[in-house]
């Protein structure tokens, strides 16, 4: 097992930074440079749904198949709704959605080392300024804030345990971390017991706030802010308890999305988006197919195909496609070369990312790889280009907007990169 995980460097840097900047190691260092822009954002109703295939989905078994080549593997390619465009036979349903999707086949990123690619990609890998950047969800939570729903702006649906994952927020401060719903389950104790009336609850919470205000007087503010924030979030979540009531789901939806983890989590993600969560991330683990790549993809891809198709259909049926940006990606693709364990290793040199919805030009395929898939043939795009593109798609001007880290202005996406116009409406 390897321990070279760059979030740990990042974590360390954040703590050092907090110390240098006057001790806001807890929360709330970041600000946005232009307050006018911030106000405008409060009225922005755009949302983002990120499907993250942790470990690295193979581009060759999905968006960029190379059948009948030395590295192509056993699967065929199939035509899609877009004339001339083929995808892997492992995604028949998504192939029929291609007119709604945009795919970049010319992703070329830097980090193939172990899993350090995960934080790099999720942070948009901006230029190194000694600052730990937020993950995309935390960035959007900061830049756009909660929607009018007041729901926590960054919710992460994942297998395993839940909790509040502060470290995603980087220098922005813990407050912008992810509320993680382990296995899509609501946090424990979400429902107020009958023994406390809502009036009694309101009374005790008001007392708590009064005592906190007094305590915070002439003390470093961030501790009380962080503690008060979790109570606010708890209160908001309680108002949406029905989101977690699986009995309210239709049998048809369950069938369409699938009863596997990814299906259930994607369906919850749709409901969270409908309820007004600004940024939802759904994670599927276990894509690091160093061994037995083809059987793994044969069992995994149909789940992606099923649940993501259901999601795209629903967004379009409900008119949410104009408001919700959907992105599906991983930290890198997989090597064209097939290794001795019939696996594919990490390959950041040429891989694919897919997106749809808000601001995205539907039915677009950008870029091309070499015939054997080993490298990008057209203009390569880095994750920084994608961050500019996605920010633009939801109405953020990433060339203008900046974070404030204390007195240090910081670009929200890599300052040497730009949005990809072909992908945008």
């Amino acid at each position, binding site marked *: 097992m390897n321990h*070279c995980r760059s979030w740990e460097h990042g974590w*360390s840097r954040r703590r050092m930074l907090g*110390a240098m900047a006057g001790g806001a190691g807890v929360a709330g260092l970041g600000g946005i440079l232009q307050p006018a822009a911030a106000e405008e954002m409060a009225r922005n109703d755009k949302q983002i749904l990120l499907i993250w295939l942790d470990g690295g989905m193979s581009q060759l078994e999905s968006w960029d198949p190379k059948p009948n080549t030395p590295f192509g593997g056993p699967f065929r390619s199939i035509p899609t709704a877009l004339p001339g465009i083929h995808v892997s036979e492992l995604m028949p349903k998504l192939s029929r959605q291609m007119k709604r999707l945009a795919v970049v086949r010319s992703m070329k990123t830097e980090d193939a080392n172990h899993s350090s690619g995960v934080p790099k990609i999720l942070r948009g890998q901006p230029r190194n300024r000694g600052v730990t950047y937020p993950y995309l969800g935390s960035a959007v939570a900061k830049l756009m804030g909660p929607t009018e729903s007041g729901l926590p702006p960054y919710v992460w649906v994942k297998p395993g345990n*839940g909790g509040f994952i502060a470290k995603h927020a980087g220098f922005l401060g813990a407050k912008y971390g992810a509320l993680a719903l382990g296995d899509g389950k609501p946090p424990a104790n979400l429902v107020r017991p009958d023994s406390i009336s809502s009036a009694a609850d309101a009374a005790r919470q008001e*007392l708590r706030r009064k005592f906190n205000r007094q305590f915070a007087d002439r*003390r470093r503010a961030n501790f009380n802010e962080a503690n008060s924030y*979790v109570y606010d979030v708890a209160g908001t*979540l309680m108002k949406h308890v029905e989101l977690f009531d699986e009995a309210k789901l239709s049998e048809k939806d369950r069938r369409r999305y699938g009863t596997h983890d990814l299906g259930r989590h994607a369906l919850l993600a749709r409901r969270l988006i409908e309820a007004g969560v600004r940024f939802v991330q759904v994670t599927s683990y276990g894509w690091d197919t160093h061994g037995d790549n083809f059987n793994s993809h044969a069992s995994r891809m149909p789940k992606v195909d099923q649940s993501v198709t259901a999601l795209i259909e629903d967004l379009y049926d409900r008119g949410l496609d104009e408001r919700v940006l959907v992105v599906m990606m991983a930290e890198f693709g997989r090597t064209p070369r097939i290794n001795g364990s019939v696996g594919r290793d990490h390959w950041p040199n040429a891989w694919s990312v897919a997106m749809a919805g808000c601001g995205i030009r539907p039915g677009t395929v950008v870029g091309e790889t070499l015939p054997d898939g080993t490298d990008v043939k057209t203009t390569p795009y880095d994750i920084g280009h994608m961050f500019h593109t996605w920010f633009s798609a939801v109405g953020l001007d990433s060339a203008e907007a900046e974070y404030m880290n204390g007195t240090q202005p910081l670009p929200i996406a890599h300052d040497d990169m730009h949005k990809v116009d072909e992908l945008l409406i």
Partner: protein
Amino acid sequence: MVWSRSSLMRQPLVLLVACLAAADGSNLVQAAEAPLHQVIDRLVESRAGKQPLAAMSDDAEFLRRVMLDLAGRIPTVAEARRFLGETAADKRFTLIDSLLSGDDYPRRMQELFHVMLMERRGEHAEWTKFLRYAFNQNLPWDRVARAMLSPDATDENLRGAAYFLTARLTKEGAMAPVDVPGLTRDVGRLMAGVDFGCAQCHDHVSIEDYKQVDFQGLHMIFENMQSRGGEFPAVTEKVMTKPREFKSVFTRDPRTTPLRIPGAGDVSIRTFPKGEEYSVAPDRKAKRTGVLKFSPLRELAGGLATGKNPLFARNIVNRLWFVMMGRGLVEPLDLFHSANPPTHPELLDRLAGEFVSHKFDIKWLLGQLARTRCYQRSSRLPGDQPLSPRSSYTVANQKRLSAEQLFWSTLVATGEIDRVKPATDDTLEKVVARTESLVELQKQFLKTFSNPPKEPEVDFAPTVKGALYLMHDQAVLDLVKPRPGNLVTKLAAEPDTGKLSEALFLAVVSRGPTTADVQVVAKLLENKTGAARIEAIGQLAWALLASTEFCLNH
């Protein structure tokens, strides 16, 4: 000695350490012309320069802080009244000494070191027993560390120390192999303050001092060892015969290294003819592991856990400083290297030197830290001055409470202990151990307020989970219901709002109420009688329990 950045930055760790050792080993252990706590204040205050200092804490603020740090809980109302009423000029020093020799101290230290060293990996009765023994006896830290690094299965009091190693050698599911590199990394982090984790496969890419050879030379010790299994944690070692071979994934050059101990350098491997490797031969039938003539673990324990190793003393004094002062002199706590110098280099040298010359006496060091003005300042900012950095120690840093501190304090605050405690003078923990509902409550507190396994508990990180637990969990709500003997019942019997406020605030937040506090209480209770009044008193108690003030050591 000043840790010169320019001259040392490009030196590998061993060289760096050699420089430190030369300075630390003897010169720094100077005859103490003044007690350490005075030296600390001089160094901290001269460094703070013109930055305004916060006022000294008042007695209530000090009492709560020092009890949380040295007893792991807030004071009872009786303890608070006694201390606040005392008039002796040296009453703070007297209190510090009585806490250090009190019943709560070994429990608090056991909990503190458990969290620090195990990072919520799990529990083991033998490990708990070892820690409790160590702090009951006030064993020197080098002795404690050697017990963990080179466990002695024949010593019933200390054998549980092996859990430090064995807990890190468990399989975590079918897909996850036993994480030996993780153990190597943790030994570096927790015992020497150096995180070699990122130097496993190549030299560290951003930290000049951390070399792959440092990792590999330490790692071979743990690759040569395994968990023995059985009723108590124990390890066995194989005979080590040859140096470790490794390659950097960058250069691919084959290299070898003998044992390599953080802060101490290479130890060559001594080999013996076949059949003569043991001074006491292993005996399978008697389940005896035997004693190796060359035991890599024993070499590690001897080379790392000693006053001659500068990293060893610096790591622990920095961690204990962090516990008391809310910030490390080196942060992150496990990233000692020449490009990350301490905020107060002379102070760190002094702490390490005196700790060694006081024979690694943790109790002595904590007593000195608690005596400082630095520790005893208020956490309230001096006026509306701009914020000084946390590392200036001009204002007391607010600190996170551990799940354990929160649990014991909640029992004290709500009078739950008074409710279940019979007329004996049992310790808190004995009362809990024989009260089923409280054992369960303790379990829930630990589950709710601890970090996930392997995440160091250093930052204040309140969670929605914690908020919802305090808001809705029935066992918590029961604590603020009127039940015979508990706080709410006692308060309900008090007709005078002023006295009621005083008792309430002293019980929960260990201080008297402010005028504004009394007004809040008076307004809430105005015109309320009977059940409505009692319910309102419960709300007050709950609101203080859930307040930021309660969940911090401020």
